[in-house]
């Protein structure tokens, strides 16, 4: 039963992309946003406010190095020299440790701005569930934050909580969502919020003869309900968008959306770049306002 390859549970796909229709040589202003999160880091390059290139990779143990790697990976196929960058903004949990950044801006501001860019001006509520936090943001038609909360104190309702749970049940994290629906009927939710106590509760349920998939379902629905009641504090307004790693777990997302009674917005973009996109856009706005780097 013990996981033979625990390391594999959270394997992150690393990717980078370059817009084939843009030549950086034609750009007036080049800005970069770097989002160093607890699990993954992204770098986004924008030319005059258009998305030109990005990268998404795992965060290493060292924030400055992770920022450096993300930027190198983002620029890899562009041939653009780093000196061409007019302004660089760091964001995310490691934002003060981005050495090439001219300044840092909170992930709350960047996320709202980035979601507005990725999903369009109709987005009003953004939920981001990352590895170690859960953010809920309401924004206006310009992508400005009007109400927010961020919970990074407690592991319940974060990717880490789900990871611990998946580990306990020896289920690869990517299979959690699918398997949580392979049950005859939806079981009652796990009642403990605290991950430590939920683990004890789950062990008790397995002893009582519950199937692993039923325990997964019970935890996914507990997590969905927890996130739902948390974001009620800021008020939920249409349109609703979900970003962050948890967006990939349909076990939680589908149960959550059922409680909310809305369909989440869809996009072809990798939603994990939202924070870095927002940072690059702030950089562009600041340079336009003449508040860019002193040369």
């Amino acid at each position, binding site marked *: 039963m013990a996981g033979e390859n625990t390391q594999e549970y959270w394997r992150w796909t690393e990717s980078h992309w370059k817009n084939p229709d843009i030549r950086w040589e034609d750009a007036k202003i080049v800005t970069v946003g770097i989002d160093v999160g607890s699990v993954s880091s992204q770098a986004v390059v924008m030319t005059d406010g258009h998305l030109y290139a990005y990268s998404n990779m795992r965060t290493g143990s060292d924030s400055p190095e992770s920022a450096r790697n993300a930027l190198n990976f983002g620029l890899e196929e562009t041939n653009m020299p780093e000196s061409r960058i007019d302004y660089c903004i760091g964001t995310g949990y490691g934002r003060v440790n981005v050495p090439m950044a001219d300044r840092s801006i909170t992930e709350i*501001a960047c996320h709202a701005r980035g979601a507005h860019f990725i999903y369009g001006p109709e987005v009003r509520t953004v939920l981001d569930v990352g590895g170690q936090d859960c953010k809920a943001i309401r924004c206006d038609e310009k992508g400005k934050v009007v109400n*927010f909360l961020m919970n990074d104190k407690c592991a319940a309702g974060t990717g880490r909580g789900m990871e611990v749970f998946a580990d306990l049940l020896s289920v690869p994290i990517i299979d959690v969502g699918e398997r949580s629906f392979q049950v005859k009927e939806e079981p009652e939710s796990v009642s403990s919020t605290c991950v430590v106590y939920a683990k004890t509760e789950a062990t008790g349920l397995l002893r009582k003869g519950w199937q692993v998939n039923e325990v997964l379902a019970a935890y996914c629905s507990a997590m969905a309900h927890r996130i739902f009641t948390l974001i009620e504090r800021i008020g939920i307004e249409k349109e609703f968008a979900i970003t962050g790693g948890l967006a990939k777990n349909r076990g939680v997302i589908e149960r959550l959306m059922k409680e909310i009674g809305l369909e989440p917005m869809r996009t072809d973009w990798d939603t994990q770049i939202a924070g870095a996109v927002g940072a690059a856009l702030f950089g562009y706005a600041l340079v336009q306002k003449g508040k860019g780097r002193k040369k």
Partner: protein
Amino acid sequence: MIANYGYRDGSGDYFITIDTDKCDGCGRCVQACPGDIFQVVDEDPNDPFREEPLVIIVSDKRKKLKYECGPCKPPTNRPPLPCVKACPQDVISHSW
């Protein structure tokens, strides 16, 4: 902007809400708070285009509000909260 600083854990919700539109950064709450949880900054960290002073919650206190605010919140006969009382603009509220 309604800024909710704090958290929820298994034991409850512990949020301090700051209505940034009403705050002028006068700092009376900073003086009033015995736990040093408030701080006046020159611009809103969550709105880079707002360049007027306002109050925020000190970042390393945000995960400990239940404890930091404990002394002002006895279980019975709770007096008015010093931070809320000190604020002339009605900017601050507590969720618990």
